[in-house]
């Protein structure tokens, strides 16, 4: 790693101030950023750890029936704390990385990083969340702008994620056998007003909504409704783990499994 200073603010205000420093970088749980720093893929002059900000942690239901999760809440906490409210989301959180990773990694960090193989972006997009930052609220449909790219401005911090709760949901991923990241992951969320389907791991453009599947499932929420549907292979990631056509095929398979298991 290159050398850097580390700041440990205990309030959001202090964190925003610290992130105003030249070449400052926010540090969530560090489960992606620290390995990247070790590979010298990033060279911040100062890291601002968000882990000590109590106001950014925790899970609660608000009066509007939204599940509100602080941006600094770990995957492990979501896995336990969301079970009663949103089992599909809790199950997703319970299968990110491994237990020790889940004790550090945070939802805000995952969404801000927008790794094309991360799980949380699929949940956020399929649920139609509102992402709250220190300056504004951003709809999920406006947040994800492509691989490792989001609507966040420099120094902007995700403080909270508000999840509408679907009637039924499920996330299924096909794990890349070595890294255990999602080679393809599909989150299906059935709301009264329609079904949303989000796909991670597959596309060169990062997480995306599979609108043809949404239309079909909104009319008929069954595995059979997806028969004959497929996503075009030209935008899919192709690497030594799978061709573009293979990933496109997996999208439909994972979506069917998610519909079959949704509850």
């Amino acid at each position, binding site marked *: 790693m290159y050398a*850097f200073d580390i700041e440990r603010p205990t309030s959001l205000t202090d964190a925003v101030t610290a992130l105003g420093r030249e070449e400052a970088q926010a540090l969530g749980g560090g489960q992606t950023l*620290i390995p990247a720093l*070790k590979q010298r893929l990033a060279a911040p002059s100062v890291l601002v750890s968000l882990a000590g900000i109590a106001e950014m942690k925790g899970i609660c239901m608000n009066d509007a029936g939204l599940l509100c999760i602080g941006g600094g809440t770990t995957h*492990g906490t979501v896995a336990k704390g969301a079970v009663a409210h949103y089992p599909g989301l809790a199950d997703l959180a319970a299968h990110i990385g491994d237990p*020790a990773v889940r004790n*550090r990694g945070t939802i805000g960090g995952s969404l801000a990083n927008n790794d094309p193989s991360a799980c949380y972006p699929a949940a956020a997009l399929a649920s139609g969340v509102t992402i709250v930052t220190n300056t504004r609220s951003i709809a999920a449909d406006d947040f994800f702008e492509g691989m490792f790219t989001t609507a966040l401005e420099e120094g902007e911090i995700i403080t909270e994620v508000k999840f509408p709760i679907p009637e039924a949901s499920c996330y299924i991923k096909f794990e890349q056998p070595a890294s255990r990241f999602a080679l393809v992951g599909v989150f299906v969320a059935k709301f009264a007003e329609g079904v949303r389907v989000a796909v991670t791991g597959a596309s060169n453009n990062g997480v995306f909504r599979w609108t043809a599947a949404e239309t079909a499932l909104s009319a008929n929420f069954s595995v059979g409704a997806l028969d004959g549907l497929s996503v075009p292979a030209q935008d899919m990631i192709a690497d030594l783990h799978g061709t573009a056509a293979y990933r496109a095929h997996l999208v439909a398979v994972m979506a069917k499994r998610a519909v079959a298991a949704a509850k």
Partner: protein
Amino acid sequence: MTKVAMTVNGKSVSREVEGRTLLVQFLRDDLRLTGTHVGCDTSQCGACVVHVNGEAVKSCTMFAAEAEGASVTTIEAMANEDGSLNTVQQAFQDYHGLQCGFCTPGMVMSATALLKDNPKPTEQEIREYLEGNICRCTGYHNIIKAIMAASGQEIPAIAAE
């Protein structure tokens, strides 16, 4: 340099560290607690697992400065007060849950964290919990048996054996 103070194995410690000093470097190089191992340094293998405020974390993927004010427990604090092996450690010995021993500190720390939350895990739950701990010697069966035994359960015949 940043000043960092924490409790490690019940003792208060304080040092000046660089921002980039990892918790595992702090434990091994500054405190000379070399029981915590660095296997991969890429967050994969789990040989560096310690407990921070009671939760298992990979100490190669956390900065020492992030443990400010925390209570850290390492493998050095796992033995009984008289120095004898504790239940989990003894079970690893009894069931031959180690060969070279390099992964063992992380295995014991992860197993202990599992049993704290889930005192009677099934074989499948143990296998899933150890997803982030890699052993290149035993093939895991004896580790699973050791953890089943440490939790006071019957040792199942493991199908793949």
